[in-house]
C-alpha cells in the first residue's frame, strides 16, 4: 500500500519536474527553473525511499527493475550535476527529465522477479556498466536534441523565445561529444559482458534476437559518430542525429527486455 503510494508520488514528482522544465524552456521563466530543480531532487529522494521500502519489505529486485531504477536516478542525478558546470544547460531538463520519467515508469514493470541465485559476477557488472553508459547517452541525447532544434531555428532564421533560451551550438556539441566519449566504452563493455553471459547461459539457443540487432546498430552508430568526428570532422547536425538515433536504438533494446520481463512475470 505504502509502496504503491510512494511509486505514484515519485512518478508525479518526475512528471511535475518535467512539466516545470518544459515551462521554463518555452516560457523562459527563471522561477520555474529553480522550482523544477527542487522538484527533481524531491523525485530522486522519493524514488530512493520507494526502492528502500520495497526492498526492506522483502520483495526481490529484478534485474530489469535494478537497471531501470539505476537509469532514472542516474539520468536525474547526472543532469543535476552537469548543471554545476559553467555553461547554463538547465533547459536540457525539458528533454532529459521525461526520459528519466519514462524509465522510472518502466521500472514498475517486473518489479519483483526472482532470479537464480547462482548468477555469476558478470551480471551486476553488465548491469552497472550498461546503466552508466546509458546515462551518458541520455545526456548526449538531450544535448543533441537541443542542438538539432537550435540548428534548425538558426538555419530557418526563426529566432523566437525558444531559440533565446537554448544554449550555444558549440556548448551543446561539446557536451554531446563528451557524453558519447564516456558512454561508448561503457556500452562496448556492456555489450561484451552481455554477449559473454548470454553465451554461457543459453549456449543451446544462441539466436540473434532483435534486441541484439538493435544493440549492435546502436554500437555501430556511436562508433560511427566518434570515428567520423575524429577522421572527417563530422560535427554538429550529423553527429547530433547519429547520437539521437543511437540512443533510441539502445532504448529499444531496453524496451524489448522490459516487455519480455513484463510478459514473463
Amino acid at each position: 500500500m505504502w509502496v504503491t503510494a510512494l511509486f505514484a508520488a515519485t512518478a508525479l514528482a518526475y512528471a511535475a519536474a518535467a512539466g516545470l522544465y518544459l515551462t521554463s524552456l518555452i516560457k523562459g521563466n527563471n522561477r520555474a527553473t529553480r522550482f523544477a530543480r527542487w522538484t527533481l531532487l524531491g523525485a530522486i529522494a522519493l524514488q530512493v525511499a520507494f526502492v528502500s521500502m520495497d526492498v526492506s519489505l522483502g520483495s526481490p529486485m529484478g534485474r530489469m527493475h535494478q537497471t531501470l531504477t539505476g537509469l532514472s536516478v542516474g539520468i536525474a542525478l547526472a543532469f543535476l550535476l552537469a548543471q554545476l558546470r559553467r555553461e547554463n544547460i538547465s533547459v536540457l531538463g525539458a528533454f532529459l527529465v521525461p526520459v528519466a520519467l519514462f524509465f522510472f515508469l518502466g521500472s514498475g514493470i517486473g518489479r519483483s522477479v526472482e532470479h537464480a541465485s547462482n548468477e555469476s559476477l558478470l551480471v551486476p557488472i553488465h548491469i552497472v556498466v550498461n546503466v552508466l553508459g546509458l546515462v551518458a547517452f541520455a545526456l548526449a541525447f538531450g544535448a543533441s536534441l537541443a542542438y538539432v532544434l537550435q540548428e534548425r531555428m538558426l538555419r530557418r532564421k526563426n529566432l523566437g523565445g525558444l531559440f533565446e533560451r537554448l544554449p550555444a551550438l558549440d556548448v551543446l556539441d561539446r557536451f554531446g561529444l563528451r557524453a558519447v566519449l564516456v558512454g561508448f566504452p561503457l556500452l562496448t563493455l556492456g555489450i561484451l559482458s552481455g554477449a559473454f553471459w548470454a553465451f554461457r547461459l543459453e549456449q543451446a539457443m544462441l539466436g540473434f534476437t532483435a534486441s541484439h540487432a538493435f544493440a549492435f546498430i546502436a554500437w555501430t552508430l556511436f562508433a560511427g559518430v566518434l570515428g567520423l568526428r575524429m577522421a572527417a570532422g563530422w560535427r554538429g547536425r550529423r553527429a547530433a542525429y547519429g547520437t539521437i538515433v543511437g540512443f533510441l536504438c539502445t532504448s529499444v533494446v531496453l524496451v524489448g527486455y522490459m516487455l519480455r520481463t513484463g510478459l514473463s512475470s
Partner: protein
Amino acid sequence: MSSVVVVGLSHHTAPLQVREQLAGETGSLEVFLAELLRREVFAEAVAISTCNRVELYGVTDDAAGSIQSARTVLRERAGAAFEQVLASGDAVYGHRGRDAVRHAFRVAASLDSMVVGEPQILGQVKEAYDRAQQAGTVGMLLGRCFTRAFAVAKRVRTETGIAEGTVSVSSIATSLARKIFGDLSGRRVLLLGAGEMGEAAAKSLSGSGAHLVVVNRSPARAEALATACNGEAVPYVQLAAELVRADVVITSTSSPSYVLTAPMMKDVSKARRGRPLFLIDIAVPRDVDPRVGDLENVFLYDVDDLQRVAEENIKQRAKSADAAERIVEIEVEEFEVWRRSLDLTPTIIALRERFTAVALAELQRSSGKLELGPKERQVLDRMVKSMVSKLLHTPLSALKRGARGPDGAALIEATRTLFDLGEVAGEDAEPSEDGKLAPEKSRS
C-alpha cells in the same frame, strides 16, 4: 504633505534639437541641480539628462508652484530659440505624486524608452542619481523613490521578456555569434570590405573578446580599419586561407557581384572540416551567394535577415511591456503606502487625542470627589490640557525633526507602535491639500 513631482521632456514630446540643446554637454546635470537649488524649487532634486530625455525630479509641498518653476528652469536653459516649442503645454510634461513615481519607475525600467527594453537607460538613471547624491540634493523621499525604481527595473528585467532579444544589427550579429560559438573570446572574426555597418558589427564582436582580422583590397584601408578596431590587417591574397581559419566572416564590400561564390565556399567548407562558420553579409548588393547558406555547418545571414530579427524582437518586447506595466503599478502602490506612513499629521493628532482623553478622564474621576465650582473646574481643565501640551512638546518636536531624516518612516512607525495608535488610514485622493502640519498649540 510632501510629494514627488517630475518635470521634463522626452522623445515622446519634444524634437531632437530641443533635447540636444537641453542635454548639452556633460555636467549639465550639476547645472540643473544648482539652478533648482538656487531658486529653492524643490526640497530634494534629481536631474536626468540623456539624448532622449531631460527630466527634473523633486520633492515639494507645493506641487503646482514647483512644476511651474521647474518649467521655467527648463525654458531658460533651452534659450530663446525654443521658447515657442516649450511654451506649448505638450512639450514639457509635469507629473505629481503617484504619477511622478510611476513615471520614474517606467523610465528606469526602460518602458518609456524609444526602444522599449534597451538596457542603457537604467545606467543613466543610476548615474544621475549618484550625481545628485554627491551634490547632496537627495533626501528620504527621492532616495526611496529611486532605489525602488532600480529594484523595479531589475524585477521587470528578470520577470518579463522585455529585455530579451537585441534590436540593433550589430548587436544581433554578436548575439547570434554567441548562440553558435558560446564564448567569443579567442574566436576569429574576419572583416571583408569597408562598409560602415560591417565595421560596427566587427567592433561589437571584437568588443566581446573575439580576434579581428581585416582583409581589404586596399591595404591602407585595411590597416586603418585594423587599427581603429584593434585588429590585424591581412593582405587580400590570403583571403582563402583566412576564410578557412575564421569563425565569423562579415562582408561589406561594394562589389556588384558575389565575392564569396558557392564553389569557392564549398572548398573552404571542406577545408574547415566541419567547424561551424557564421557568415554575415551586410553588403547591398550581396557579397555572398545565398546558396552558400545550404552548406553543412555554415550559417549565412544577410542584412534583411538581421533586420527581420530586429523587428521581431521589437514586437516581442512590446508584448512583454504589458506584464511590466503591471509590475510597475504594484510597486507604485507599495511606494504610496510607504509614503502615506510618512505623513506625520495623523500621528500627531492621534497622539494628542490619546493623551488629552486620558488626562480629562482622570480629571473627571477626581472631580467627583471634590466640590468644585464652575470656575475651579475651568482652571483645572485648562491646567490639564496645558500639561498634556507641555509633556508632548519635546517628543513631538523630536518626531518632526526625525521624520525628515533618512529613518523618518521607522521613527513614525515606532511612535505609532509605542502608543498603540494603529495603522495609518489610507487616503485615496492625491495630496492636493497644502499638507502643512497641524499648527502647534503649545502656548504656555
